[in-house]
Structures are given as structure tokens and as C-alpha cells.
């Protein structure tokens, strides 16, 4: 079987994309913490539900950023082939 240099580059780009997407791990933990705290505060103060929901959505969006960066790195590695 003949393996050329560009094949190796493609294979390692795919592995790198898989590692880059692991950044979603921290995002998941952060969003879970935010959602659990939001549930607690709605249970404690049900009349503030709408403003808590808004805060939760903004917080989840901010926590999502690092995961999105990982996703973009993975997509660039897979679709653009910057190293070949």
C-alpha cells in the first residue's frame, strides 16, 4: 500500500479536527452549571422567571464561545485543508 505525504496530512488533519472538537467538553460543563443554577433560582423566586431565562440564554451563549472556536478549527481542518 502506497501512502503519500498528502494522505498523511489528511489523516492527521482529521485526527486534529477530532481533538479540536473536544473543546465542547468545557462548554457542556459550563452550560450545565448555568442551567442548574437557573433552575435553583427559579425555584427560589418563581416571579423572576423571565429575566432569569434571559440571563440563562446570554450566559449559555457566552459559555458556548470556546466550543464554537473548537468547531471552527475542526471545520477548517476538515474542509479547507490549510496544510496541504
Amino acid at each position, binding site marked *: 500500500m502506497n501512502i503519500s505525504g498528502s494522505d498523511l496530512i489528511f489523516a492527521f488533519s482529521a485526527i486534529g479536527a477530532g481533538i479540536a472538537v473536544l473543546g465542547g467538553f468545557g462548554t457542556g460543563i459550563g452550560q450545565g452549571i448555568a442551567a442548574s443554577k437557573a433552575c435553583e433560582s427559579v425555584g427560589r423566586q418563581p416571579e423572576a422567571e423571565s429575566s432569569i431565562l*434571559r440571563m440563562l*440564554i*446570554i450566559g449559555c*451563549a457566552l459559555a458556548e464561545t470556546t466550543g464554537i472556536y473548537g468547531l471552527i478549527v475542526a*471545520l477548517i481542518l476538515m474542509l479547507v485543508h490549510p496544510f496541504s
Partner: protein
Amino acid sequence: MGISTVKTIFHIGPIPISNTIIWTWVIFGILTLVLLLLSRNLKLKPTGKAQLICEYLVDSVRSLVKTTMGEDKGYFGGYFFTIAGFLILSNLSGFLFLGIVRPPTADLVTTLTLGIFTFLMCQGFAIKTKGIGGYLKTFLDPFPFMLPLNIISEMSTPVSLAFRLFGNIFGGMVITGLIYSMIAGNIYTTAFIFLMSVILNILIYTGKFKKVLDNKIMKFIGIILMFPSLFAAFGHAYFDVFAGVLQTFIFCMLSMVFVSQAMTD
């Protein structure tokens, strides 16, 4: 895969015009046309439904702006109404035309432009409310040697806004494309399967061509053909409708928060 790419269609002078730019202008046209039709012959006491819809949309955006930015900043409602309308139409356009037209927000050009709008608004309104001296003083805020960190944190605002929107929409587009390639190879086969299954099921339930369609084999084929399109429908419903509307809301909310933060402290 059934993913459309950004490609240059033609040039105007030295400027290349890509397919996302053309679709951006189509969305501008649709938005302008719909809002012009809704706001025809406005009256003080509205009689038609169009003016009521119009007033409801404008009022809800303005009340959202007021609750987020403060009671005295309702005049930002127009800007955020425009941004929200453009973003919602462009995010939902991936739902309609995957593989044919690329949604404008799946191109970094569009999202980075909107992020830079927010950045310029932050700087401009900060200068307007604090004066040029007060504005420059905020960069030296806790200690003077924090200046590079403050500049970096200001510059990261448009980048993070742009990449959040772009990553969500483009990631959803790629995953929907993977679903398509998993079930049928490409978008045209999928569309064919979907149309065939819809036609077959309509024929079965309306009862036309009863002789051909009443046997169990044809019914079985109709139900089997429905499964691939169910997968695709789930992908579109989650990544285009749900994530698209949510990202529109989040982009507008974060822009409001950044601008009002720059104006107050």
C-alpha cells in the same frame, strides 16, 4: 456532501460578487417589500390587520430594547429591528434552500460585518456619552499598565460575536449536509425521495388510484420512503429553525448589552 460553497459569480470592476452577497441583497429586497406592504396607509386608529401586525412587531422589539438597555434608550429599537429581521430571514433561508443557496450568515463576511457594526456603535456611543477624554480614560481604568489588555478585550467583542453566529449556522449546515449524504448521497436524490414519498402518501390517504395503491406493498414502500426525510426534517428543524431563531435573539441581546455597557460606566 450537499453543502454549497462560497463562489464568485461575477465581478463589478475589481470587486468580486459571491453567491452569498447576491442572496443578501435578495433578503434585503424581501424584507423591504414585506415591511413596505405592512406599513402602507398608516392611520391613527388602525382598521386593517397589516398595521396591527406592524405595530406588534415594532412594539415588541422596542420593549425588549427598553428592558435590556434601559427606559431612555428606546431609540435603538429601529436598528435592532432591522438586524433581527435580516438575521432571522437569512438563518431560515438555509432551511429552504440547502445546497442551492448558501445562507448569508454561513459566510464569515456577513457576520464579521455585523460584529464590526456593533463594535463601531460601542465606540461611537461611548465617545458621545463620556466625551473624548473620558473615553480614552476608560482604557487606563484600574491601572495604566492594563492598557493592552483593555484594547484586546475591546477588539475581541466583534470577533466573538461574529464567530458565534458563523459557527452555529455553518456547523448546522455541515451537520445537515452530513445527514443528507448519510441517507441519500446528495441533495437531489433526497429531494426526489421526499417528493415521491409525499406524493405517495397523499395518494394513499386521499384514496385516488385505489386499485394500485390499496395493496400492502405500496403502503409499505410509502412508509419506508418517509424515514430518510424524517431524519432530514429533524436536522432542519433543530439546526435551522431552533438554532437560527435562538442565535438571532442572542446576537441582538449581546449587541444591546455591549452597547449599553459602553454607554453607562
